């Protein structure tokens, strides 16, 4: 059923019509929250709060825009507020990341995949918040430029510019990390060779 039909039912007082909307967009909301906050429990809490906020303000929803971008916008703003309030630098739990990867692959492959995933995660996390959000919305949530404009409230030129810079910064970070890990491998190889 179309989102707008469900929203009209909700506004008419039928709260059960909100359930399909939660089912449809909970992964998007959770994913944005997880990428912005890097904490699974907090992301789950934020997902609940975002849907409650959307429910409470449903009468303010503008049908000119899709419900998807509206709820994504609420999520992004909510997460930015939390980060500003806590004044924190997000950091992904290395052990947690290792566990997620080892569930998917064999032990050796898992170590390599885990290292790679950690490197990518760290590189993304090292980006300033607005660039990190752009990268996540475009490359992870597969949202279009138009959708990102609506979500972030920025014009197309700013969105394109930020994504351009975000990719550039990400490439530099990845090169930096790859260089460091190569250096580490070289040092350990020399240490093994000389028996130290």
């Amino acid at each position, binding site marked *: 059923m179309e989102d707008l039909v469900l929203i009209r039912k909700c506004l008419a007082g039928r*709260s*059960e019509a*909100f*359930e399909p909307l*939660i*089912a449809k967009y*909970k*992964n998007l*909301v*959770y*994913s944005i929250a*997880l990428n912005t906050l890097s904490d*699974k429990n907090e992301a*789950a809490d934020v*997902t*609940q*709060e975002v*849907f*409650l*906020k959307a*429910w*409470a*303000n*449903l*009468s303010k929803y503008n049908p000119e825009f899709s419900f998807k971008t509206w709820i994504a916008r609420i999520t992004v703003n909510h997460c930015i507020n939390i980060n500003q309030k806590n004044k924190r630098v997000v950091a992904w739990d290395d052990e947690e990341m290792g566990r*997620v990867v080892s569930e*998917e692959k064999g032990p050796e492959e898992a170590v390599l995949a885990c290292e*790679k*995933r950690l490197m*990518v*995660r760290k*590189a*993304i996390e090292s980006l300033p918040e607005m660039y990190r959000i752009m*990268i*996540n919305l475009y*490359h*992870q949530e597969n949202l279009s430029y138009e959708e990102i404009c609506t979500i972030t409230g920025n014009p197309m030129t700013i969105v394109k510019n930020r994504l*351009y810079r975000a*990719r*550039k910064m*990400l*490439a530099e970070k*990845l*090169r930096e990390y*790859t260089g460091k890990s190569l250096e580490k491998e070289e040092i350990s190889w020399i240490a093994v060779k000389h028996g130290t």
Partner: protein
Amino acid sequence: MDCSQAWNLIMEYFDKELPSDQEQKLMEHLKHCPACKGEFDALSSAFVEMEHMKEPAPPYLELKIMKRIKKAPRKGEIILPLVIAPLIILLALAALGLHVISQGGLSDFLAQTIRFLTISYRTFSAAIALLEQMFNSFYMRLSLTVLVILSAIFAGIYIVRNIRKAKTSFNGG
């Protein structure tokens, strides 16, 4: 093609907007430029990796949210009937009181209030007497008393429940 031109094409490539002839030119440049090739490969694999990093929301969330939504009515649902209507009545009474005070002073206002209360009481008593006469029975008085008590209890429960709901709604839980 220099590296800055190549970088612009890399951007268009990741935007999925690069025409095939331009893509061929880019690939040709990447073959001979290890710096651009390094960045291109790093970004490509990072974006593929990001797809794998996606995690679904915990399955319990849906039920939990619905449970909270059923407890928390939307903004306006509580405010309109419970706050705005009594507020309008209070404001009207206050305006009327101020008007009477400004016209005849405080003593006149008090006299008018007492008169109004007396008239109201008399009207109410007359209505009850009429009803009593109409039904002419002890049971009528009893049922009216029970009705008034029950209405007061239900009104109390309704107000307390809605205040709790309002608190849940505004605290987000």
